[in-house]
């Protein structure tokens, strides 16, 4: 049995740790590229959201390289993600691939259920190995997320431009060849050390921008045209509110903990939507935009794939939020037709506007103090 799985941002690192610790044979599809999108688009319905298409492309890549089992997630509710698995397995069947679909339910995720679903994978493996794998994987995801956050911190402050990019590129290459938890952990630590060694300008005060929106569009760098790197190199500090670690924390770890804590952005979002759930990350998007306004970010970038239903609703609240919390928000919609040049132009215009706003506020503050 050979397992394959779809990409989502840096999710591949913990999955690699998990499968290698348990000792399951697997195929990792190549990082999302033109070919992946092409495969996906050929076989997908026209108006389905982009993650569906690229994930289908990942599966096809995986199957062509010998995989016969797919590890994926499903669920219930309003968002289409919950029903991906059903349609994807139907499509794969009709184009002639015979595969097993393992679908983990995300809405009511419990340890027991996950273990049960993974039973097909773990048959014949000792349960201590499985538990060790899960713990290692969760640890890895937090470490990787921290590393990427650190990169966002150094990238906009570095004195010699391009150093951070080089370190991260090197890390991405090396982590694919690293084996097991120990090997991957060493790579992360090494990259972290190299990032810390980069000379940065400690006095600079870069613009601070929050990324909110749909999780796949916000974390998958090929789909969002590497927005974090692009903004960082423009001298902007990016805070991605939708890390995979964050998501695991909300959906998995908080479910197990005996003390229930509230999901902050979710609660904040209820100011404009008087309901518990509008599907997907809709409420979190609204909440994160509000919180970014309160925490004095300079701006918010809202990313979502074309036809994403929850985010369209979230978008309708932004004209109010911008006025009330005095925070500029730009919405960028992504799909397979997105052209890079037009996208970059809009980003640059937005950044220029934020710089002007900041300078204007500074100068008006100064005249006020001068007057007094």
């Amino acid at each position, binding site marked *: 049995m050979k397992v394959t799985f779809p990409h989502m941002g840096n999710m591949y690192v913990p999955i690699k740790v998990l499968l290698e610790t348990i000792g399951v044979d697997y195929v990792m599809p190549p990082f999302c590229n033109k070919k992946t999108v092409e495969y996906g688009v050929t076989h997908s*319905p026209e108006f389905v959201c982009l993650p569906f298409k690229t994930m289908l492309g990942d599966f096809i890549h995986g199957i062509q390289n010998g995989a016969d089992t797919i590890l994926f997630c499903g669920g*219930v509710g309003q968002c289409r993600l919950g*029903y991906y698995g059903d349609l994807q397995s139907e499509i794969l069947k009709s184009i002639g691939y015979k595969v097993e679909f393992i679908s983990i339910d995300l809405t009511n995720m419990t340890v027991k259920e996950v273990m049960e679903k993974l039973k097909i994978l773990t048959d014949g493996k000792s349960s201590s190995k499985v538990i060790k794998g899960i713990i290692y994987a969760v640890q890895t995801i937090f470490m990787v997320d921290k590393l990427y956050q650190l990169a966002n911190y150094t990238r906009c402050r570095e004195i010699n431009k391009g150093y951070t990019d080089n370190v991260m590129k090197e890390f991405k290459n090396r982590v694919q060849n690293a084996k097991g938890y120990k090997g991957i952990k060493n790579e992360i630590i090494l990259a972290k050390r190299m990032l810390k060694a980069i000379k940065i300008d400690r006095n600079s005060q870069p613009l601070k921008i929050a990324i909110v929106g749909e999780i796949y569009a916000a974390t998958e760098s090929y789909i969002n045209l590497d927005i974090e790197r692009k903004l960082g190199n423009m001298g902007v500090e990016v805070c991605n509110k939708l890390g995979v670690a964050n998501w695991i924390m909300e959906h998995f770890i908080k479910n197990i903990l005996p003390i229930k804590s509230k999901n902050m952005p979710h609660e904040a979002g209820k100011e404009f939507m008087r309901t518990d759930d509008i599907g997907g990350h809709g409420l979190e998007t609204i909440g994160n935009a509000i919180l970014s306004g309160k925490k004095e970010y300079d701006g918010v970038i809202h990313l979502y794939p074309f036809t994403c239903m929850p985010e*369209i*609703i979230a978008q309708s*609240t932004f004209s109010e939020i911008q006025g009330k919390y005095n925070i500029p928000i730009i919405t960028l919609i992504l799909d397979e037709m997105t052209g890079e040049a037009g996208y970059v132009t809009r980003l640059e215009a937005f950044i220029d506007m934020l710089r002007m706003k900041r300078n204007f506020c500074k100068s008006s503050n100064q005249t006020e103090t001068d007057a007094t």
Partner: protein
Amino acid sequence: MKTLLTLNHHIRNKKKYKSATDLVIGIPKGLFYHEHSRLWEKFFENLGCKVIVSEDTNKEILNYGIKHCSNETCLPVKVFHGHVYSLKDKVDYIFIPRYTSVDKNEYTCPKFCGLPDMSLLNLKGSIRVLEVKLHIDKDINFTFESLKELAKNINVEYNNVVEAFKNAVDLFHKNEEEKLRDGLNQVNKSKKLAVSVLGHPYVIYDNYMSMRLIGKLKNKNIDVYTPMSLDRETKRRNAYPFQGKVFWGVGFENLGSAFTFAEDENINGIIYLSPFACGVDAFIVEFIERRFKTHYKVPFLKLTIDEHTGEAGFDTRIEAFLDMIGCD
């Protein structure tokens, strides 16, 4: 800085001096209306309110909707906003229910969940909204909580509101049962052609959006069948591959109808009417098309509409389809 929204919350919470009998409630003729009009009209009549339903969709209403919605919103939601806008000066309150799930294991499109807030925000708080929440899959008490709030807003005793609601629900179900007795579930064996029109009820029964598709077919002496000509259980039973699973309510309706009609020899063709970029239909139509290709022989036409659709092009495609299935 006081924004419109906080102002609106203020208005919402202000004490009302009008009694319920003086209140005029507006019901927009869009989305939920086409399925549950009787339920909500009866509900407010029971409370002694005057009910005004917005007029049929027309060009003016559509233009209001387009003006007040973001580009990405789908056509039915834009039209709905137009209906709300057309009512705003005529009524005290506009009634917009919040449907999250209308039955066990059946969810709605996310846009229904945020509809009251979305209308309020898009129309910049120029309206006052009454809402009833339906989330049957999770907890039926959500409905009663929202009724409590509604009772406070219109200044009627809570027990009376619950009574009125229960009465309206009973009547609604009785109506549905009667419809079943009137020969549902049967496709007539006649020499006439029979075509099934599928899609969301708020698209196929809205004469402006659907460009009178059902009327046009009937004028050509064709029998028309919609998901409403089948009973609930049949549709759930045939909704491949979601039998017994969780899915969108409208998905069950259309998947089930498509496969039920496809198996019926008396049906000559199936037309699916879908709004542009509809997220739910992207899935449903794909399931239907893939299975039709392998399992059935019935001709299938998918028509996509949005606010730019021209009627001539639309008609041409329908005529071509009808020629193909042998209509003179």
